[in-house]
Protein backbone atom coordinates (compact mmCIF):
# COMPACT_ATOMS: atom_id res chain seq x y z
CA UNK A 1 0.00 0.00 0.00
CA UNK A 2 2.67 2.50 1.02
CA UNK A 3 4.74 1.36 -1.95
CA UNK A 4 1.89 2.11 -4.27
CA UNK A 5 1.36 5.57 -2.78
CA UNK A 6 5.07 6.27 -3.01
CA UNK A 7 5.00 5.32 -6.66
CA UNK A 8 2.06 7.64 -7.17
CA UNK A 9 3.84 10.58 -5.59
CA UNK A 10 7.01 9.82 -7.54
CA UNK A 11 4.98 9.92 -10.71
CA UNK A 12 3.51 13.31 -9.69
CA UNK A 13 7.02 14.68 -9.13
CA UNK A 14 8.21 13.36 -12.49
CA UNK A 15 5.14 14.73 -14.27
CA UNK A 16 5.31 18.17 -12.65
CA UNK A 17 9.03 18.80 -12.91
CA UNK A 18 9.82 17.23 -16.28
CA UNK A 19 7.50 15.09 -18.33
CA UNK A 20 4.43 17.30 -18.17
CA UNK A 21 6.05 20.56 -17.09
CA UNK A 22 3.49 23.38 -17.34
CA UNK A 23 5.98 25.74 -18.93
CA UNK A 24 7.92 23.50 -21.30
CA UNK A 25 5.42 20.80 -22.28
CA UNK A 26 1.92 22.04 -21.61
CA UNK A 27 2.94 25.55 -22.69
CA UNK A 28 0.43 27.05 -20.31
CA UNK A 29 0.72 30.43 -18.67
CA UNK A 30 2.91 31.80 -21.43
CA UNK A 31 1.79 35.39 -20.88
CA UNK A 32 3.36 35.87 -17.43
CA UNK A 33 6.14 33.43 -18.34
CA UNK A 34 7.34 35.58 -21.20
CA UNK A 35 6.50 38.96 -19.73
CA UNK A 36 8.04 38.86 -16.24
CA UNK A 37 11.17 36.83 -16.83
CA UNK A 38 13.39 39.79 -17.70
CA UNK A 39 15.20 39.32 -14.36
CA UNK A 40 15.73 36.40 -12.00
CA UNK A 41 14.14 38.33 -9.13
CA UNK A 42 10.88 38.97 -10.95
CA UNK A 43 10.78 35.39 -12.19
CA UNK A 44 11.30 34.03 -8.69
CA UNK A 45 8.68 36.37 -7.21
CA UNK A 46 6.03 35.40 -9.70
CA UNK A 47 7.02 31.74 -9.42
CA UNK A 48 6.46 31.74 -5.67
CA UNK A 49 3.12 33.56 -5.96
CA UNK A 50 1.92 31.16 -8.67
CA UNK A 51 3.08 28.18 -6.63
CA UNK A 52 1.12 29.42 -3.63
CA UNK A 53 -2.07 29.92 -5.63
CA UNK A 54 -1.65 26.59 -7.41
CA UNK A 55 -1.34 24.60 -4.19
CA UNK A 56 -4.29 26.37 -2.54
CA UNK A 57 -6.55 26.17 -5.57
CA UNK A 58 -5.73 22.50 -6.23
CA UNK A 59 -6.44 21.62 -2.60
CA UNK A 60 -9.72 23.52 -2.57
CA UNK A 61 -10.91 22.23 -5.92
CA UNK A 62 -10.13 18.70 -4.77
CA UNK A 63 -11.90 19.25 -1.44
CA UNK A 64 -15.13 20.42 -3.04
CA UNK A 65 -15.04 18.10 -6.04
CA UNK A 66 -18.03 16.00 -4.91
CA UNK A 67 -20.31 19.02 -4.73
CA UNK A 68 -19.41 20.59 -8.02
CA UNK A 69 -21.70 19.58 -10.90
CA UNK A 70 -19.75 19.17 -14.11
CA UNK A 71 -21.89 21.69 -16.01
CA UNK A 72 -20.84 24.61 -13.82
CA UNK A 73 -17.38 23.42 -12.78
CA UNK A 74 -15.43 25.93 -14.86
CA UNK A 75 -17.03 29.08 -13.38
CA UNK A 76 -16.63 27.57 -9.91
CA UNK A 77 -12.93 26.83 -10.50
CA UNK A 78 -12.45 30.36 -11.80
CA UNK A 79 -14.18 31.74 -8.71
CA UNK A 80 -11.96 29.72 -6.39
CA UNK A 81 -8.78 30.71 -8.24
CA UNK A 82 -9.76 34.38 -8.39
CA UNK A 83 -10.53 34.37 -4.66
CA UNK A 84 -7.12 32.89 -3.86
CA UNK A 85 -5.29 35.31 -6.11
CA UNK A 86 -7.07 38.24 -4.46
CA UNK A 87 -6.17 36.92 -1.01
CA UNK A 88 -2.53 36.37 -1.96
CA UNK A 89 -2.45 39.85 -3.44
CA UNK A 90 -3.88 41.45 -0.29
CA UNK A 91 -1.57 39.49 1.98
CA UNK A 92 1.48 40.37 -0.10
CA UNK A 93 0.47 44.00 -0.13
CA UNK A 94 0.22 43.95 3.66
CA UNK A 95 3.26 41.88 4.59
CA UNK A 96 5.73 42.01 1.69
CA UNK A 97 5.03 45.44 0.30
CA UNK A 98 8.27 45.68 -1.69
CA UNK A 99 7.65 42.41 -3.49
CA UNK A 100 4.05 43.39 -4.15
CA UNK A 101 5.22 46.56 -5.83
CA UNK A 102 7.92 44.92 -7.91
CA UNK A 103 5.49 42.33 -9.32
CA UNK A 104 2.96 45.02 -10.14
CA UNK A 105 0.29 44.05 -12.61
CA UNK A 106 1.46 40.43 -12.95
CA UNK A 107 0.23 39.48 -9.52
CA UNK A 108 -3.49 39.87 -10.32
CA UNK A 109 -2.80 38.38 -13.75
CA UNK A 110 -2.11 35.01 -12.11
CA UNK A 111 -5.89 34.55 -12.41
CA UNK A 112 -5.51 34.28 -16.16
CA UNK A 113 -2.68 31.73 -15.95
CA UNK A 114 -4.12 28.68 -17.73
CA UNK A 115 -1.71 26.39 -15.90
CA UNK A 116 -3.79 26.86 -12.76
CA UNK A 117 -7.22 26.17 -14.18
CA UNK A 118 -5.62 23.45 -16.30
CA UNK A 119 -4.45 21.59 -13.20
CA UNK A 120 -7.77 22.18 -11.44
CA UNK A 121 -9.64 20.66 -14.36
CA UNK A 122 -7.23 17.90 -15.38
CA UNK A 123 -6.06 16.67 -12.01
CA UNK A 124 -7.44 18.24 -8.85
CA UNK A 125 -11.09 17.70 -9.75
CA UNK A 126 -10.49 13.95 -10.04
CA UNK A 127 -8.07 13.18 -7.21
CA UNK A 128 -7.94 13.26 -3.39
CA UNK A 129 -6.75 16.37 -1.55
CA UNK A 130 -3.29 15.06 -0.65
CA UNK A 131 -2.36 14.11 -4.20
CA UNK A 132 -3.96 17.26 -5.60
CA UNK A 133 -2.02 19.59 -3.30
CA UNK A 134 1.18 17.69 -4.02
CA UNK A 135 0.49 17.94 -7.72
CA UNK A 136 -0.03 21.69 -7.28
CA UNK A 137 3.27 21.95 -5.45
CA UNK A 138 5.19 20.01 -8.10
CA UNK A 139 3.57 21.80 -11.03
CA UNK A 140 4.29 25.09 -9.24
CA UNK A 141 7.93 24.17 -8.74
CA UNK A 142 8.18 23.01 -12.35
CA UNK A 143 6.73 26.30 -13.54
CA UNK A 144 9.00 28.31 -11.21
CA UNK A 145 12.08 26.45 -12.45
CA UNK A 146 11.27 27.35 -16.04
CA UNK A 147 10.63 30.96 -14.98
CA UNK A 148 13.95 31.19 -13.14
CA UNK A 149 15.93 29.51 -15.94
CA UNK A 150 14.41 31.86 -18.49
CA UNK A 151 14.99 34.82 -16.15
CA UNK A 152 18.64 33.86 -15.63
CA UNK A 153 19.39 33.58 -19.35
CA UNK A 154 17.57 36.78 -20.23
CA UNK A 155 19.07 38.81 -17.39
CA UNK A 156 22.62 37.74 -18.25
CA UNK A 157 22.09 38.39 -21.96
CA UNK A 158 20.12 41.57 -21.53
CA UNK A 159 21.76 43.36 -18.63
CA UNK A 160 24.88 41.32 -17.88
CA UNK A 161 23.79 40.91 -14.26
CA UNK A 162 22.25 38.28 -12.01
CA UNK A 163 19.88 38.84 -9.08
CA UNK A 164 19.49 42.53 -9.87
CA UNK A 165 16.92 43.95 -7.45
CA UNK A 166 16.85 40.80 -5.32
CA UNK A 167 16.50 42.93 -2.19
CA UNK A 168 12.96 43.84 -3.23
CA UNK A 169 12.06 40.20 -2.90
CA UNK A 170 14.29 38.88 -0.14
CA UNK A 171 15.20 41.87 2.02
CA UNK A 172 18.28 44.06 2.23
CA UNK A 173 20.77 41.26 2.82
CA UNK A 174 20.13 40.17 -0.77
CA UNK A 175 21.85 43.29 -2.11
CA UNK A 176 25.04 41.24 -1.81
CA UNK A 177 23.63 38.61 -4.19
CA UNK A 178 23.84 40.87 -7.21
CA UNK A 179 26.46 39.61 -9.65
CA UNK A 180 27.82 41.65 -12.51
CA UNK A 181 28.64 39.00 -15.10
CA UNK A 182 29.86 41.40 -17.73
CA UNK A 183 29.52 45.08 -18.52
CA UNK A 184 27.43 46.60 -21.30
CA UNK A 185 27.44 50.06 -22.72
CA UNK A 186 23.75 49.68 -23.38
CA UNK A 187 21.28 46.92 -22.63
CA UNK A 188 20.71 44.15 -25.16
CA UNK A 189 17.10 45.06 -25.70
CA UNK A 190 16.01 41.93 -27.58
CA UNK A 191 16.73 39.74 -24.58
CA UNK A 192 14.75 41.99 -22.28
CA UNK A 193 11.70 42.35 -24.52
CA UNK A 194 9.09 39.59 -25.05
CA UNK A 195 10.42 38.47 -28.50
CA UNK A 196 13.70 37.54 -26.82
CA UNK A 197 11.71 35.55 -24.29
CA UNK A 198 10.04 33.62 -27.12
CA UNK A 199 13.39 32.81 -28.70
CA UNK A 200 15.01 31.69 -25.44
CA UNK A 201 11.89 29.68 -24.64
CA UNK A 202 12.20 27.94 -27.99
CA UNK A 203 15.79 26.97 -27.23
CA UNK A 204 14.76 25.67 -23.79
CA UNK A 205 12.05 23.45 -25.30
CA UNK A 206 14.51 22.23 -27.95
CA UNK A 207 17.06 21.41 -25.24
CA UNK A 208 14.44 19.44 -23.34
CA UNK A 209 13.57 17.47 -26.46
CA UNK A 210 17.24 16.67 -27.11
CA UNK A 211 17.63 15.39 -23.55
CA UNK A 212 14.46 13.32 -23.90
CA UNK A 213 15.78 11.79 -27.15
CA UNK A 214 19.11 10.95 -25.52
CA UNK A 215 17.30 9.31 -22.62
CA UNK A 216 15.13 7.29 -24.99
CA UNK A 217 18.18 6.09 -26.95
CA UNK A 218 19.93 4.93 -23.82
CA UNK A 219 17.15 2.52 -23.06
CA UNK A 220 17.84 -0.61 -25.15
CA UNK A 221 14.22 -1.60 -25.64
CA UNK A 222 12.07 1.48 -25.55
CA UNK A 223 8.60 0.56 -24.49
CA UNK A 224 5.77 1.89 -26.50
CA UNK A 225 4.72 4.84 -24.42
CA UNK A 226 1.36 6.39 -24.28
CA UNK A 227 1.90 10.04 -24.79
CA UNK A 228 -0.27 11.64 -22.26
CA UNK A 229 -1.48 15.08 -23.03
CA UNK A 230 -3.38 17.26 -20.75
CA UNK A 231 -6.43 18.50 -22.44
CA UNK A 232 -8.49 21.21 -20.94
CA UNK A 233 -11.79 20.26 -22.41
CA UNK A 234 -14.32 22.94 -21.79
CA UNK A 235 -17.15 21.09 -23.49
CA UNK A 236 -19.33 19.04 -21.25
CA UNK A 237 -19.60 15.69 -22.93
Amino acid at each position, binding site marked *: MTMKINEEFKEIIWQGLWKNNPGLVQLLGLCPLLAVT*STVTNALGLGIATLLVLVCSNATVSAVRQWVPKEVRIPIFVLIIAAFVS*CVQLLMN*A*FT*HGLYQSLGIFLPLIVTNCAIIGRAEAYASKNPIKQASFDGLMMGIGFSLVLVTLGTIREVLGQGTLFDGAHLLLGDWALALRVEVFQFDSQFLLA*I*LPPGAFIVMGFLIAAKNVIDDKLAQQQPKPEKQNIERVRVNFDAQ
Partner: protein
Amino acid sequence: MSMSVAISKNSKILALFAISCTAIVGLVNELTKDKIYQQQQKQLLSTLNNIIEADRYNNELTLDCVKVNDIALGSDKEQTVYLARLNSTPVAAAITAVAPKGYNGNIELIVAINVDGSINGVRILDHQETPGLGDKIELAKSNWITSFSGKSLMSNNDSRWAVAKDGGMFDQFTGATITPRAVVSAVKETALYFKENQKSLFTHENDCQLIKQTLVSDDKEKASDDHEN
Protein backbone atom coordinates in the same frame (compact mmCIF):
# COMPACT_ATOMS: atom_id res chain seq x y z
CA MET B 1 -38.77 19.21 -16.22
CA SER B 2 -35.52 17.58 -15.18
CA MET B 3 -33.60 20.27 -17.05
CA SER B 4 -35.17 23.10 -15.07
CA VAL B 5 -34.44 21.20 -11.88
CA ALA B 6 -30.79 20.87 -12.96
CA ILE B 7 -30.62 24.53 -13.87
CA SER B 8 -31.97 25.70 -10.54
CA LYS B 9 -29.72 23.28 -8.64
CA ASN B 10 -26.65 24.39 -10.56
CA SER B 11 -27.37 28.06 -10.15
CA LYS B 12 -27.85 27.56 -6.42
CA ILE B 13 -24.48 25.85 -6.15
CA LEU B 14 -22.85 28.52 -8.26
CA ALA B 15 -24.40 31.26 -6.11
CA LEU B 16 -23.23 29.51 -2.97
CA PHE B 17 -19.66 29.37 -4.24
CA ALA B 18 -19.79 32.98 -5.37
CA ILE B 19 -21.01 34.09 -1.95
CA SER B 20 -18.43 32.10 -0.01
CA CYS B 21 -15.53 33.19 -2.25
CA THR B 22 -16.59 36.83 -1.93
CA ALA B 23 -16.93 36.40 1.83
CA ILE B 24 -13.38 35.02 2.10
CA VAL B 25 -11.90 37.83 0.04
CA GLY B 26 -13.92 40.35 2.07
CA LEU B 27 -12.63 38.86 5.29
CA VAL B 28 -9.00 38.93 4.17
CA ASN B 29 -9.49 42.49 2.97
CA GLU B 30 -10.90 43.46 6.37
CA LEU B 31 -7.97 41.79 8.17
CA THR B 32 -5.25 43.35 6.02
CA LYS B 33 -6.81 46.79 5.52
CA ASP B 34 -5.05 48.54 8.42
CA LYS B 35 -1.72 46.89 7.70
CA ILE B 36 -1.90 47.91 4.04
CA TYR B 37 -2.77 51.49 5.05
CA GLN B 38 0.21 51.54 7.39
CA GLN B 39 2.50 50.20 4.68
CA GLN B 40 1.30 52.82 2.22
CA GLN B 41 1.74 55.58 4.81
CA LYS B 42 5.24 54.35 5.59
CA GLN B 43 6.06 54.26 1.91
CA LEU B 44 4.71 57.81 1.53
CA LEU B 45 6.93 59.11 4.31
CA SER B 46 10.10 57.68 2.87
CA THR B 47 9.08 58.93 -0.57
CA LEU B 48 8.53 62.43 0.83
CA ASN B 49 11.97 62.40 2.42
CA ASN B 50 13.47 61.34 -0.89
CA ILE B 51 12.17 64.39 -2.70
CA ILE B 52 12.43 66.97 0.08
CA GLU B 53 15.62 66.48 2.07
CA ALA B 54 14.78 65.88 5.73
CA ASP B 55 17.18 68.58 6.98
CA ARG B 56 15.53 71.33 4.97
CA TYR B 57 12.34 71.44 7.03
CA ASN B 58 11.46 70.97 10.67
CA ASN B 59 7.68 70.65 10.69
CA GLU B 60 5.95 67.27 10.68
CA LEU B 61 5.61 66.90 6.94
CA THR B 62 3.00 64.16 6.79
CA LEU B 63 0.79 66.08 9.23
CA ASP B 64 0.94 69.40 7.42
CA CYS B 65 -1.08 69.16 4.28
CA VAL B 66 -3.86 70.62 2.19
CA LYS B 67 -6.38 68.52 0.30
CA VAL B 68 -7.11 70.08 -3.04
CA ASN B 69 -9.37 69.28 -5.90
CA ASP B 70 -8.23 70.79 -9.16
CA ILE B 71 -8.41 69.48 -12.70
CA ALA B 72 -4.96 71.00 -13.31
CA LEU B 73 -3.56 68.14 -11.24
CA GLY B 74 -4.77 65.62 -13.78
CA SER B 75 -7.98 64.21 -12.37
CA ASP B 76 -11.17 65.19 -10.59
CA LYS B 77 -10.07 63.24 -7.53
CA GLU B 78 -8.77 64.82 -4.35
CA GLN B 79 -5.00 65.35 -4.26
CA THR B 80 -2.76 66.13 -1.32
CA VAL B 81 -0.23 68.92 -0.97
CA TYR B 82 2.36 68.33 1.78
CA LEU B 83 3.89 71.55 3.02
CA ALA B 84 7.49 71.70 4.21
CA ARG B 85 8.40 74.63 6.47
CA LEU B 86 11.53 75.62 8.33
CA ASN B 87 10.59 77.51 11.49
CA SER B 88 7.18 78.24 9.91
CA THR B 89 8.75 79.70 6.75
CA PRO B 90 7.57 77.89 3.61
CA VAL B 91 10.39 75.87 2.02
CA ALA B 92 8.81 73.52 -0.48
CA ALA B 93 5.65 71.58 -1.23
CA ALA B 94 5.12 67.99 -2.34
CA ILE B 95 2.05 67.67 -4.52
CA THR B 96 0.43 64.40 -5.56
CA ALA B 97 -0.83 64.47 -9.13
CA VAL B 98 -2.06 62.24 -11.90
CA ALA B 99 -0.70 61.89 -15.42
CA PRO B 100 -3.88 60.95 -17.27
CA LYS B 101 -2.27 60.21 -20.62
CA GLY B 102 -0.18 57.19 -19.67
CA TYR B 103 0.15 54.32 -22.13
CA ASN B 104 -1.87 52.10 -19.86
CA GLY B 105 -4.08 54.34 -17.73
CA ASN B 106 -3.31 56.85 -15.05
CA ILE B 107 0.18 57.35 -13.65
CA GLU B 108 0.18 58.65 -10.09
CA LEU B 109 3.13 60.77 -9.09
CA ILE B 110 4.35 63.18 -6.46
CA VAL B 111 6.19 66.37 -7.32
CA ALA B 112 8.25 68.39 -4.86
CA ILE B 113 8.55 72.07 -5.79
CA ASN B 114 10.65 74.66 -3.98
CA VAL B 115 9.15 78.03 -3.16
CA ASP B 116 11.26 79.57 -5.95
CA GLY B 117 9.36 77.37 -8.43
CA SER B 118 12.15 74.91 -9.21
CA ILE B 119 11.46 71.18 -9.11
CA ASN B 120 13.19 69.50 -6.18
CA GLY B 121 12.29 65.94 -7.06
CA VAL B 122 9.65 63.71 -8.66
CA ARG B 123 8.67 60.13 -7.85
CA ILE B 124 6.14 57.75 -9.38
CA LEU B 125 3.68 56.40 -6.83
CA ASP B 126 1.66 54.04 -8.97
CA HIS B 127 1.43 53.04 -12.61
CA GLN B 128 0.50 50.21 -14.97
CA GLU B 129 2.98 50.96 -17.73
CA THR B 130 4.52 48.19 -19.82
CA PRO B 131 7.19 46.29 -17.86
CA GLY B 132 10.58 46.63 -19.53
CA LEU B 133 9.53 49.70 -21.51
CA GLY B 134 7.43 52.32 -19.76
CA ASP B 135 8.36 51.26 -16.26
CA LYS B 136 11.69 53.07 -16.54
CA ILE B 137 9.86 56.00 -14.93
CA GLU B 138 10.41 54.13 -11.64
CA LEU B 139 13.58 55.05 -9.83
CA ALA B 140 14.22 51.34 -9.23
CA LYS B 141 14.50 50.74 -12.98
CA SER B 142 16.18 53.89 -14.22
CA ASN B 143 17.28 57.26 -12.90
CA TRP B 144 15.34 59.11 -15.60
CA ILE B 145 12.92 60.54 -13.04
CA THR B 146 15.78 62.44 -11.38
CA SER B 147 16.27 64.50 -14.55
CA PHE B 148 13.52 66.81 -13.30
CA SER B 149 15.52 67.93 -10.26
CA GLY B 150 16.58 71.55 -10.41
CA LYS B 151 14.56 72.33 -13.54
CA SER B 152 12.10 75.20 -13.51
CA LEU B 153 9.50 76.71 -15.79
CA MET B 154 10.62 79.84 -17.62
CA SER B 155 7.11 80.76 -18.70
CA ASN B 156 3.64 79.27 -18.93
CA ASN B 157 4.48 77.99 -22.40
CA ASP B 158 8.00 76.78 -21.86
CA SER B 159 8.69 74.63 -24.93
CA ARG B 160 11.67 72.93 -23.28
CA TRP B 161 9.18 71.07 -21.09
CA ALA B 162 8.69 68.16 -23.48
CA VAL B 163 10.47 64.95 -24.44
CA ALA B 164 13.42 65.24 -26.83
CA LYS B 165 11.35 63.83 -29.70
CA ASP B 166 9.00 66.82 -29.36
CA GLY B 167 11.93 69.23 -29.14
CA GLY B 168 12.13 69.35 -25.36
CA MET B 169 14.88 68.74 -22.83
CA PHE B 170 13.78 65.38 -21.39
CA ASP B 171 14.85 62.06 -22.89
CA GLN B 172 12.30 59.50 -23.95
CA PHE B 173 12.90 55.76 -23.63
CA THR B 174 13.72 53.39 -26.46
CA GLY B 175 10.37 51.95 -27.46
CA ALA B 176 8.34 54.16 -25.14
CA THR B 177 7.58 57.81 -25.80
CA ILE B 178 4.02 58.04 -24.55
CA THR B 179 4.88 57.29 -20.92
CA PRO B 180 7.63 59.92 -20.44
CA ARG B 181 5.58 62.41 -22.44
CA ALA B 182 2.68 61.92 -20.02
CA VAL B 183 4.94 62.31 -17.00
CA VAL B 184 6.68 65.43 -18.32
CA SER B 185 3.34 67.07 -19.07
CA ALA B 186 1.94 66.17 -15.65
CA VAL B 187 4.99 67.60 -13.85
CA LYS B 188 4.69 70.77 -15.92
CA GLU B 189 0.99 71.14 -15.09
CA THR B 190 1.74 70.60 -11.42
CA ALA B 191 4.49 73.23 -11.45
CA LEU B 192 2.10 75.69 -13.10
CA TYR B 193 -0.56 74.89 -10.53
CA PHE B 194 1.90 75.53 -7.71
CA LYS B 195 2.99 78.81 -9.24
CA GLU B 196 -0.59 80.06 -9.31
CA ASN B 197 -1.70 78.74 -5.93
CA GLN B 198 1.46 78.93 -3.83
CA LYS B 199 0.26 81.70 -1.49
CA SER B 200 -3.13 80.19 -0.78
CA LEU B 201 -1.68 76.71 -0.26
CA PHE B 202 0.72 77.79 2.49
CA THR B 203 -1.94 79.78 4.30
CA HIS B 204 -4.69 77.20 3.89
CA GLU B 205 -6.13 75.44 6.91
CA ASN B 206 -4.30 72.19 7.71
CA ASP B 207 -6.24 69.14 6.53
CA CYS B 208 -3.98 66.46 8.00
CA GLN B 209 -4.18 67.52 11.64
CA LEU B 210 -7.24 65.36 12.31
CA ILE B 211 -5.53 62.03 11.83
CA LYS B 212 -2.53 63.03 13.93
CA GLN B 213 -3.37 60.58 16.71
CA THR B 214 -3.13 57.50 14.51
CA LEU B 215 -0.05 58.69 12.69
CA VAL B 216 2.07 59.55 15.68
CA SER B 217 2.21 55.95 16.88
CA ASP B 218 3.24 54.86 13.38
CA ASP B 219 5.97 57.44 13.23
CA LYS B 220 7.68 56.02 16.28
CA GLU B 221 7.90 52.58 14.73
CA LYS B 222 9.11 54.10 11.53
CA ALA B 223 11.84 56.31 12.90
CA SER B 224 14.20 53.39 13.38
CA ASP B 225 13.87 51.59 10.06
CA ASP B 226 13.38 54.46 7.66
CA HIS B 227 15.60 56.46 5.31
CA GLU B 228 16.26 53.72 2.85
CA ASN B 229 15.93 53.89 -0.92
